[in-house]
């Protein structure tokens, strides 16, 4: 019995190596042979001739007949052709080639094969025993985990030295290091979501240099993973860390999507992130607002994270490798935001072979290409653009009430308004969004890599048009009316490995944000024999420029001690102008500031069970001339294989604020402003979070609680003065209200990780309140406060089909009601009607709920690799009218209440192709 187990163990150990060898054999071996037999016999022949192991069900495979003459064909081509002719798939895993009638058969074949192997174990030669007795003891070894097919480094992969407590989770660069490895005959295992687990034996040669661990993708349709604690699937939580979520962009097509796989929207399905804000892709994390969430993409801060009024995230999932969301109490490595951090790592580009992809939906076209440029560098290009089909129009109209007359009747009026009659047919103005990613990675040598990353995205709505001349003196007359906002960002990253246990990433980054609105009526007027040019209207521009440099160091001192440290410097520049009639600048702000500082953090594992992580971050902020200190601490304690306790706390500052100017007609506008320490204070938050998790190979139960205090919160309003006819009189004045708040809550997550059915249930009980003097002296529910939120995400995999159902229920958002109205006459004799406004956010909108469904059919290559998919998504299936907000308008002294709703039932089709 013991012998049998030993034999099994060794077979297992050698599998990874053999999988690669088998892949190579398929390409290298050439077949010249005539086959006229049943398929099972042909496979037997091949197995014998080329020392291969085929696994198949003889009963079913013997039905297929092969009559083919191969002349110097690679074995891979032979298999491709034979399987293709018979509508079969093959799949290479471990040292075996599985012949599948149906991709779901793999699990069954594997089990079957295991039984056969066990029965025949005594006849197997034990594989890959140590070649010699160990020569090296207690040495250190380092390396990198990469994808064998693309050369991409794999972040958050788990590397273990078997039969020792040594275990390492790779960082964004895929690097790992072990100290005190007992002997150079130990076996190392690498595992990562969506990849075949890879094991190899160390030897005296290997440990001399950095080891590159190349992992092969798992059969796409597999949900089955048999090792405890493995990450798999769409959403992964690290049971040992508090408030961390990881997302695999490649798995996003298994969820319902509204036109684009959306990494930011996917987070909204997870516990602790509000899922009911259809008008924002930004994350409302644990009572925080989107501007309190730091979004970092390849080292640069992203200031505009959505397209189309928040309905879509600004990041192209095809250009993204990995996304991590830190829901609070995060590491000292990150700072400058009060609530949370979203870190997005872009793909490097395929260093092995050129690949291309196209995604087409009712909303947009998305294309990408990855290619090695030479043996040292690779390139990734991704681009997507919306097109104004019915789906785009439907979403656009949901968030923007602007319409223009289909014909040029009447002219001049400009804003037809929702349902404004008299203009005949109303059409949506020309509008689109696009974004582009480019990344060039250059390996200077084995230890130094440079990566140049570029990202840009823009939303533009253009309503400009020529007006018909309604007066003989007007020679030309046109309206310029556009809104344009977006980002332009780039970074140069230098990754360096300084010996086995120190590595660093140094970045020089540029990130800009702009938000421009121009509504001007201009033309030429013929007055008294002269042409007089005229231009009236408003131009509003906000632009932000962020130049930063930062360096992040990672020093693994021993197996139990790691030091993280680094420094940063940022120059920010914000311009905000509101100009009227060309010359009259109502708001003109030009601010510049400098921020600089550093951080240090220790990760210490005094015992195998306890992990503590104290850190400190400090920032000097030019505007206030003060130094800010942010202590951080997190810890986890593993009770046993299944239970973990964890906690985190910290202090956080925010020096820049996003303010929203509500504009019902044209969609809300967002602006960034720099804190000045007085009217716009520096925001400060303290987090206290704790939790416990239970995890086995099937399920994960995670319970976390949090309490946060916030001060120096800012709200913004523009006050308009003067009510004269025409716009010439209006002056505006901006006002900032400051206040404080707190947030607390409990999140419960139950996740089923394995099997054909996977998914999770998430429940959050939360309370978020603010106190702003302008609304009184008491706390009131914050705008984003939701008491109960329940989410059920269900995914079912059957053969090549993936079905999913997402149900979201939440308490309605709080809102303010007018209790009554009154009318008084001003000194000019004009009457104004005002509301007696009820307590701030005292009422609740009706509960929000919706069901989304999707079905995806995978297109597979003969060798089982995925080549694309066809998907159907249904959003808000039962067409529930979820209310966004209520609108109170005074018409003839009467107050008319209108419900403004979110999107109703909307279907979408997607087609994805890869080659």
């Amino acid at each position, binding site marked *: 019995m013991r012998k049998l187990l030993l034999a099994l163990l060794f077979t297992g150990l050698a599998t990874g190596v053999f999988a690669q060898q088998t892949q190579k054999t398929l390409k290298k071996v050439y077949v010249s042979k005539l086959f006229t037999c049943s398929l099972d016999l042909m496979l037997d022949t091949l197995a014998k001739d080329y020392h291969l192991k085929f696994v198949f069900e003889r009963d079913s495979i013997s039905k297929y007949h092969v009559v083919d003459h191969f002349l110097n064909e690679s074995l891979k081509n032979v298999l491709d052709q034979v399987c293709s002719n018979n509508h079969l798939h093959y799949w290479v895993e471990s040292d075996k080639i599985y012949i599948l009638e149906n991709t779901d058969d793999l699990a069954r074949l594997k089990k079957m094969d295991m039984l056969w192997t066990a029965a025949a174990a005594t006849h197997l030669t034990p594989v890959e025993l140590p070649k010699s007795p160990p020569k090296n003891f207690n040495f250190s070894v380092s390396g990198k985990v990469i994808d064998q097919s693309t050369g991409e480094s794999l972040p958050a992969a788990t590397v273990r030295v078997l039969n020792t407590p040594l275990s390492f989770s790779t960082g964004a660069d895929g690097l790992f290091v072990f100290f005190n490895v007992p002997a150079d005959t130990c076996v190392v295992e690498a595992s990562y979501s969506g990849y075949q687990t890879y094991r190899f034996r160390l030897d005296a040669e290997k440990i001399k240099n950095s080891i590159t661990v190349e992992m092969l993708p798992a059969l796409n349709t597999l949900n089955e993973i048999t090792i405890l604690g493995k990450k798999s699937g769409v959403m992964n939580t690290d049971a040992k860390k508090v408030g961390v979520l990881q997302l695999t962009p490649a798995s996003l097509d298994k969820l319902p999507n509204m036109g684009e796989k959306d990494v930011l929207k996917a987070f909204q399905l997870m516990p602790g992130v509000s899922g009911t804000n259809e008008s924002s892709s930004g994350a409302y994390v644990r009572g925080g607002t989107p501007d309190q969430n730091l979004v970092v993409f390849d080292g640069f801060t992203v200031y505009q994270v959505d397209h189309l009024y928040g309905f879509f995230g600004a990041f192209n999932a095809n250009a993204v490798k990995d996304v991590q969301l830190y829901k609070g109490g995060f590491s000292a490595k990150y700072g400058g935001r009060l609530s949370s951090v979203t870190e997005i790592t872009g793909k490097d580009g395929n260093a092995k072979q050129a690949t291309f992809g196209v995604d087409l939906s009712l909303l947009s076209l998305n294309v990408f290409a990855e290619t090695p440029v030479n043996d040292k560098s690779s390139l990734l290009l991704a681009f997507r653009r919306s097109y104004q089909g019915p789906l785009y129009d439907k979403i656009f109209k949901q968030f923007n009430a602007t319409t223009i007359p289909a014909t040029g009747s009447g002219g001049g009026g400009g804003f037809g308004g929702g349902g404004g009659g008299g203009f005949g047919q109303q059409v949506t103005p020309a509008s689109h969004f696009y974004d582009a990613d480019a990344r060039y990675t250059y390996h200077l040598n084995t230890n130094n890599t440079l990566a140049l990353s570029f990202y840009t995205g823009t939303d533009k709505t253009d309503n400009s048009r020529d007006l018909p001349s309604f007066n003989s003196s007007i020679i030309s007359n046109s309206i310029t009316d556009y809104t344009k906002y977006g980002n332009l960002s780039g970074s140069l990253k230098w990754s360096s490995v300084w010996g086995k246990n120190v590595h660093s990433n140094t970045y020089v980054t540029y990130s800009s944000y702009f938000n421009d609105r121009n509504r001007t009526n201009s033309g030429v007027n013929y007055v008294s024999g002269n042409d007089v040019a005229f231009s009236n209207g408003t131009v509003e521009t906000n632009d932000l420029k962020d130049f930063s440099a930062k360096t992040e160091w990672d020093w693994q001192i021993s197996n139990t001690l790691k030091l993280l440290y680094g420094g940063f410097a940022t120059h920010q520049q914000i311009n905000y102008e509101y100009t009227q009639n060309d010359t009259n600048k109502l708001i003109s702000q030009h601010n510049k500031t400098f921020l600089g500082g550093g951080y240090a953090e220790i990760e210490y594992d005094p015992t195998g069970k306890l992990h503590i992580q104290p850190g400190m971050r400090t920032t000097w902020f030019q505007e206030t001339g003060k130094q800010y200190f942010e202590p951080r601490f997190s810890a986890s304690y593993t009770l046993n294989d299944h239970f973990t306790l964890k906690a985190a706390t910290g202090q956080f500052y925010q020096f820049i604020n996003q303010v929203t100017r509500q504009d019902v007609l044209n969609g809300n506008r967002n602006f960034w402003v720099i804190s000045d320490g007085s009217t716009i204070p520096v925001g400060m938050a303290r987090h206290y979070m704790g939790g416990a998790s239970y995890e086995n190979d099937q399920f994960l139960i995670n319970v976390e609680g949090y309490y946060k205090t916030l001060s120096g919160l800012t709200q913004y309003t523009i006050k308009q003065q003067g009510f004269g006819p025409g716009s*010439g009189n209006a002056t505006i004045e901006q006002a900032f209200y400051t206040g404080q708040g707190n947030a607390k809550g409990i999140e419960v997550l139950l996740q089923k990780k394995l099997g054909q059915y996977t998914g999770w249930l998430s429940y959050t009980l939360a309370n978020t309140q603010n106190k702003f003097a302008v609304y009184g002296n008491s706390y009131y529910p914050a705008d984003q406060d939701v008491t109960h939120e329940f989410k059920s995400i269900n995914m079912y995999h059957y053969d090549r089909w993936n079905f999913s159902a997402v149900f979201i229920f939440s308490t309605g958002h709080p809102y303010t009601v007018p*209790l009554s109205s009154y*009318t008084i006459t001003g000194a000019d004799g004009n009457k104004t009607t005002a*509301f007696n*406004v009820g307590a701030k956010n005292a009422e609740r909108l009706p509960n929000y709920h919706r069901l989304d469904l999707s079905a995806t059919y995978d297109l597979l290559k003969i060798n089982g690799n995925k080549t694309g998919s066809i998907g159907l998504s249904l959003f808000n299936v039962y067409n529930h009218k979820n209310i966004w907000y209520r609108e109170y308008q005074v018409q003839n002294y009467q107050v008319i209440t209108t419900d403004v709703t979110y999107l109703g039932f909307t279907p979408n089709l997607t087609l994805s192709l890869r080659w």
Partner: protein
Amino acid sequence: MVIKKHISIIIILLTVTILSACTKDNPDTKSTTLPVIESYLMPGQPVVVKLYQQKSLTDTAVYGAHITGMKVYISDGSQKVQLTESTSGVYTYTNLTFLVTGKTYSLQFNYLGYNVTASTVMPAKPVNFVSQYPGITIVSGTPGNRGTVLNLFSWSNPDSLNHVLVIKGVSATVPVNSFSSDKPLNSQINTNRASYYNLTASPFAYLGAYQIILLRVNQEYINLLNNNTRTSSQDLNQVPTNIVNGFGIFTAMQADTLNFTVL
């Protein structure tokens, strides 16, 4: 088992923390039964205080129902007088010498158990209010040049006091262009504590005779004027008022008037 106990204790503790922190304060709201006051005190004119009830949201009446039968008092610091209800809901005091520059006037009455009060200071009369031209000419039908400065109004304001310019149509009926016909005749402009105002064609929707009234006003009136009535439930805000236990305005002001023609 021990571990399960641990977890349940943690959950219970967390729940207790959350729930205990959920006790709600009720932020101050204003009752819908509070009265609405409209009163502008100007020297040389009788004191007029109009009292209304608030309206329900679906009410189509212009004003709320009159509040009648009140004992309304006004005091100038030394003398307290009771106003008489001249017509329903309109309370007056006709002694034209009562209102003088520099005095503080306080309004007081009891309504449904509320002690309703307000006070205001009578500002001085505007000084040296002059116009560059007696009138302006607007080329009818042109959307252009409405931003061009056509006339300068100026006055003395060394202390940067609040002034409002009221444009009041006297016999202006001819619309400036085809879009003007639904625009109000009168308007008012906050001059932002300046001592001049550059007039453009914008305030004028009609051609004809106007009065340009320069009002020296108090901050409470500016607050009301600055109010930007919001209509979205995400953004509703109480309109500022200087009335305690009520809504509306009780403010003193002084005027200087020029005649002005727009052709």
